[in-house]
């Protein structure tokens, strides 16, 4: 999938680090925005040290960093120096979007409170994504994606029946915060197109994840029941689960959402017609029958057989299988990008296809400070001024 040019001409200054903020920047870059990732060499973005690695050493070896920062330009800037802050001010003056995920006090302490940013550029869409919020009793508390799984209510709902809560297999709130912020930013750009005014957008990451608890809060207030751990069982649909097949850790997911689908599945299990209420009452029996039915079967063949009967079924795939998947290959979900340090490597995403939209090839993630000189030159700095800033330590 090539890079879309929907956001052609949108300039984004991305001073975020780690996962959530850079994921927002990645999505905007994939949509065609010109995203400048501002880093500091004094304290490397932790993603530059995050596995997997595609080179033995150095700040440009991380595949995770390369994936989440593709299509961006990268500069290094020390905002603790006057020269660094001058560059930042010039960047902000020309930007459409400023994206950051510092704790709430950081940017104001560096001389960039919102009021100042809005004075520099009244058309600026400024997006801040604090963990808990820029205000409130927990504003100075630390959060990472995994802790927000708990703090948002998501971990409480994930786990085996009757057992403690479990984290998911990824730091889901990080990506949730990123895509939520990117959505809010483009929505604010639409308002700006209408009104000419920028916006102050705040996306507290705890809230971005808590917004995804589905019906849990409604259910608590309207039925008095919590949405606790239930394995793969669904509060309504039966059967709804994964069933072990022949092979190493091979499972097939099967769902019946209506009586018609049950009528097609039941004969395979040696069971008869059942209403929804009957299926709920006999859930364990149905799960056991499905388990016996699937146990000796080839996972992929079984999924195809059930699909052909109009029953929702699919193999439980690993990421490694997705990397080799024929359907995703036909959709060109995974495509190579040539990176000067990492070489040609395959990268996944984004999850959209946009017919009728201009596209461009992806560009590799920036090496540390790769575009500092070019970006500063475009901001009007002369080579002598850039050399002076470098001497002062402003471009570290």
């Amino acid at each position: 999938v090539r890079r879309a040019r929907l956001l052609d001409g949108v300039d984004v200054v991305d001073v975020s680090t780690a996962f959530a903020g850079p994921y927002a920047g990645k999505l905007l870059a994939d949509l065609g925005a010109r995203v400048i990732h501002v880093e500091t060499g004094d304290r490397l973005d932790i993603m530059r040290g995050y596995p997997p690695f595609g080179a033995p050493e150095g700040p440009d070896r991380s595949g995770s960093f390369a994936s989440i920062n593709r299509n961006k330009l990268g500069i290094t800037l020390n905002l603790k120096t006057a020269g660094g802050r001058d560059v930042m001010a010039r960047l902000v003056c020309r930007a459409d979007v400023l994206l950051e995920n510092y704790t709430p006090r950081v940017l104001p302490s560096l001389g960039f409170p919102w009021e100042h940013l809005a004075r520099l550029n009244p058309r600026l869409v400024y997006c801040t994504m604090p963990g808990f919020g820029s205000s409130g009793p927990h504003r100075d508390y630390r959060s990472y994606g995994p802790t927000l799984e708990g703090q948002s209510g998501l971990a409480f709902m994930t786990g085996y029946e009757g057992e403690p809560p479990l984290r998911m297999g990824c730091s889901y709130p990080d990506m949730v915060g990123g895509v939520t912020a990117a959505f809010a930013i483009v929505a604010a750009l639409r308002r700006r197109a209408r009104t000419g005014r920028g916006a102050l957008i705040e996306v507290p990451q705890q809230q971005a994840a808590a917004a995804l608890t589905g019906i849990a809060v409604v259910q608590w207030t309207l039925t008095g029941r919590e949405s606790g751990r239930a394995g793969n069982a669904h509060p309504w649909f039966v059967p709804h689960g994964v069933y072990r097949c022949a092979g190493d850790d091979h499972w097939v997911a099967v769902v019946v959402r209506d009586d018609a689908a049950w009528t097609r599945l039941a004969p395979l299990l040696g069971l008869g017609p059942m209403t929804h209420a009957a299926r709920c009452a006999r859930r364990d029996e149905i799960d056991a029958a499905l388990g016996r039915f699937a146990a000796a079967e080839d996972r992929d063949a079984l999924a195809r057989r059930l699909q052909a009967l109009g029953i929702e079924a699919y193999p439980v795939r690993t990421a490694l299988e997705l990397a080799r998947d024929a359907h995703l290959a036909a959709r060109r979900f995974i495509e190579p990008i040539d990176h000067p340090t990492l070489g040609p490597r395959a990268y996944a995403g984004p999850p959209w296809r946009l017919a009728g939209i201009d596209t461009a090839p992806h560009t590799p993630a920036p090496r540390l400070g790769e575009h500092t000189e070019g970006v500063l030159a475009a901001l009007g700095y002369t080579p002598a001024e850039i050399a002076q800033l470098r001497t002062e330590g402003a471009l570290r």
Partner: protein
Amino acid sequence: VDRAVSDLERPLAGLRVLDLTRELRGAYCGRLLAEFGADVVLVEPLDGNPWRAVGPFADDTPHPERSLFFLHYYAGRKSVALDVGCAEGRAVLEALARGSDVLLHDLTPARATALGLDWAALAAAHPRLVIAAVTAFGETGPERELPGGDLIATAAGGLMALTGDPARAPLRPGGDQGEHITALHAALAIVAAVVDGDAGAPAARVDISAQEAVASVLENAMEFALFEDRAVARQNGRHPISWPGRVFPCRDGFVVISCGSAPQARACFTLVGDQATAADPVLDDRDVRRAHADQLEARLIARFADWDAEALFHAGQGLGIPIGLVHSARSLTEDPQLASYGFIRSVTHPEAGSYLDVGSPFRVDGRQPALGPAPALAAHTAEVLTAAGLDADARECLRRQGVIQ
């Protein structure tokens, strides 16, 4: 007057969305657009959107206006009841589409064709219409016709294989996350297409795959597959890299800790008064810490048994430990940080009564977007059809033919 001004301030004010969704991913996408001020019209079959028949129900009383799924996911819409299975109904649908900026659906290509909408003619007549399909597997590729909701999306997208105990069944994360993450990416792409349309560019056909949206948020599991040809195994809730990085039981509940550095890991032991472990060099290196996870975690679990979650949370944060409470729905509604933002939203619904729901995670210029309740079936048929140019006589005729309700 204040209301009108604030409506104009909403980012998507004036955006007209025709919502034909039947899956939660499409439904949540419509909710996101409505939260930002879009005018979202839901077209339902005459007997109602299928989620109206899905429980649980308010007060456990089955009723089409009491489905918790419908109340949550279809909040903020207008409802039109229309039989799109007949020529007259399709003509009404096309009239509604002509007055829209976005047509949002979750039909597979064959089902979209079977609907009988002339998509090419629609696009030609309305070149700025963004047509967005939010499907399980996308609109192209050999598996494009496979149906599926959240379980299928999370199985197909690699998230279940990463979640749970490696010795037991892969787990679906709670609360339809495959549907939510697809809806968020869809809403982003749709609004980006609209912004581009504002600039005069031709509109897009937006094709979103739930499988791909899930595969896009696996942290770095795709990168391990693509860089090292390696599958990341399920870790039974442990973070694959950070340690400690898991849910811990304590006296009255659970906390979750995720330490990214040696000082943070040491602080966990300082917190519970285990100075010997806090000073142990085993904590110095990330990989060494994790290799000793079982014995180190056992020490923490033994001491946490004397702590209440709330006390652990505040004391841990005081030492700079990234620690979070494991909130239930009830404790979410009591969280002082969320309360300070007014995040939990109070909803009044004529049939279901008053209840709480999660609110919007956005503040635009300091304000939380508003969102109306889910509509009663067909509550806005007359209003919406009138706006589309169908007068009272035309509507009555359609009603007698059983095309609208």
